[in-house]
């Protein structure tokens, strides 16, 4: 099986496991490419009708393109969409000068409020391991306590697709079905599936967003990539260096060609 199919099948398996084990499951959708991929996989896992709510943490700073995309596909795919905002903080005029504070109040606290309100005991997230150094130590199923802290060192072992799958009281478990996907895997999957995604990822006026979130905190990169193929190619050059599969095959092919022309083959 090719790598993408393997990842897809594994993710679907995890999503179905999560759905079986948790009483009150929800999926976090940030409308970015990763969580949209997760959403896509959920649709596959449940044959089109996702049996739990999809939660969008709205910080109200986000690009209007994001809202448009969200509403279009929530309708198209018949999602049970919940939108959570930290109304208080917004009213008090949260500024984005202190990034951490802003994120905390608007995102994290909004999530806390939603969990408290709806009583979710399990959350599906589109976190990937190659995204964030600290995340790298995450497991597929990670317990969080009330303060959303988890003890790095005292993680439950995961063994052979058997996961810690029951939350103790006052905690919830986070499930990361995309943990083993890389950025490039996501884009290749997007390409293979012809998956829709927010146009912000495409280059406009020589710039595009590699990841999207709040308008204020995201910095676009220089790029001319418009199609998914171009995005993938760009990734190959910037991320895994020249030694990755395609580039090395090309090198070997060049060497062979040269040797052949010289009569050394």
């Amino acid at each position, binding site marked *: 099986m090719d790598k993408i199919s393997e990842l897809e099948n594994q993710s679907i398996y995890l999503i179905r496991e999560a759905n079986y084990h948790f009483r009150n499951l929800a999926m976090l959708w940030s409308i970015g490419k990763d969580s949209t991929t997760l959403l896509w996989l959920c649709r596959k896992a449940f044959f089109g009708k996702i049996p739990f709510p999809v939660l969008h943490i709205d910080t109200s700073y986000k690009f209007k393109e994001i809202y448009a995309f969200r509403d279009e596909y929530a309708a198209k795919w018949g999602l049970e969409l919940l939108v959570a905002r930290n109304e208080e903080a917004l009213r008090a005029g949260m500024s984005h000068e202190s990034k951490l504070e802003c994120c905390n109040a608007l995102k994290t606290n909004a999530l806390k409020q939603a969990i408290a309100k709806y009583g979710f005991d399990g959350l599906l997230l589109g976190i990937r391991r190659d995204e964030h150094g600290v995340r790298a130590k995450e497991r597929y199923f990670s317990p969080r306590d009330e303060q959303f802290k988890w003890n790095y*060192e005292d993680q439950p072992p995961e063994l052979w697709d058997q996961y810690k799958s*029951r939350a103790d009281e006052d905690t919830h478990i986070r499930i990361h079905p995309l943990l083993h996907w890389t950025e490039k895997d996501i884009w290749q999957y997007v390409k293979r599936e012809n998956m829709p995604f927010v146009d912000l990822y495409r280059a406009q006026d020589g710039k595009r967003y590699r990841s999207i979130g709040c308008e204020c905190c995201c910095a676009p990169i220089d790029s001319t990539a418009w199609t998914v193929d171009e995005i993938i190619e760009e990734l190959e050059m910037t991320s895994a260096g020249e030694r990755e599969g395609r580039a*090395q095959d090309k090198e070997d092919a060049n060497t062979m060609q040269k040797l052949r022309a010289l009569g050394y083959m």
Partner: protein
Amino acid sequence: MTEREHLKFVVVGSVDHGKSTLIGRFLYDTGSLPEAQLAVLRQVSAGTDEQVEFAFVLDHLEEERANHITIDTAQTFFSSDRRDYVIIDAPGHKEFLKNMITGASQASAALLLLDVHEGLQDQTRRHAYMLSLLGVRQLIVVLNKMDLVDFSEEVFTDKAAQMHELLGKVTLDHLAVIPAAALGGDNIVNRSGKMPWYDGPTVIEALDLLKPDVTDESLPLRLPVQDVYEIDGRNLAVGRIAAGKVSKGDTVVVCPKGVEGKVASIETFDGPLDSALAGESVGVMVDGEVELSRGLTLTDPRAALGTTEKLMASVFWMSPDPLKRGERIALRLATQEVPCVVESIANRMDSGSLEIIDEDADQLADTEVAEVTLVSDDGVNSESFSHVPEMGRLVLMRGSDIVGGGIVP
């Protein structure tokens, strides 16, 4: 373009043995570092030689960059000419054994990193044994820091012989022992100029020689039912095929019930399939007098999957609170969840020394291994790990925590 293979391996060893240096070398010498980051590092270390440049790389390996180029440290990706690799990190201290187990349970091979001028410890043997028990039977031992012994052939040969002896009792399919010095990049990716007496493989060559996990189509069908969904008024059983192949029209036996049914359709959201192979997550409609539910297994009628009320497994314990004879404990194997009683704990062994502590024990403590017999009313559908791994490995749970793992021999 032909598809590239990919292989996951776990690196076992402590930071003092040079693990982060080793991983840094893999990335740096294969050119797998993000180009942008390399460029920045080159600027910073400009004018210095490669050794210093590499040291910078190491230092910055853990840092996050503002423009979202990050390097994963616990799951690292790099490529050789032949394959794409994923390194799963596994810490090297006893208390982190369960972290290693988690990492190793996903790996096809293990790299055991040792300091060539340190003695070989119990820990090494424990790791190798646990790895083998976890089904990781391809081992590459890297005897690192050869620079500290002046790249001596004698020292290496001596140590390598010791390794072979130490690992004599461990079941392995493949073992290579390689002299290296990760700091200078000797024999990791590039062949060392300092060890001309060594003509075996470099670490990356040894990795390239490993066999990836191959799913064997000829194995009998094993499809553990994960859940049952009602789709358009029909009951669709979903699950990931653990082994073998299922085709539309096949007759299957539903274990443990023993009832036969016919596969009416194999479904995915993208459409129906004529057949599906191991690893695929599918939905299945089965005709016949059978009600499907989680925990049942669809099997090939020509190769029965046994139901055992009295199951013996090689169990390794992972909790500070020991397993006791007579204890009630939950067993999970594939999608089955079966309450059991521990009938006996035989040949209790210290996994470090591989010495038997007690032939007939009352309990099993953290990091120990034993042949544990588990009795259940309903029985467990299992088979030998060496035949179909997914149906031969189990975990033991207390509450919602995994406290032990086991292999059905």
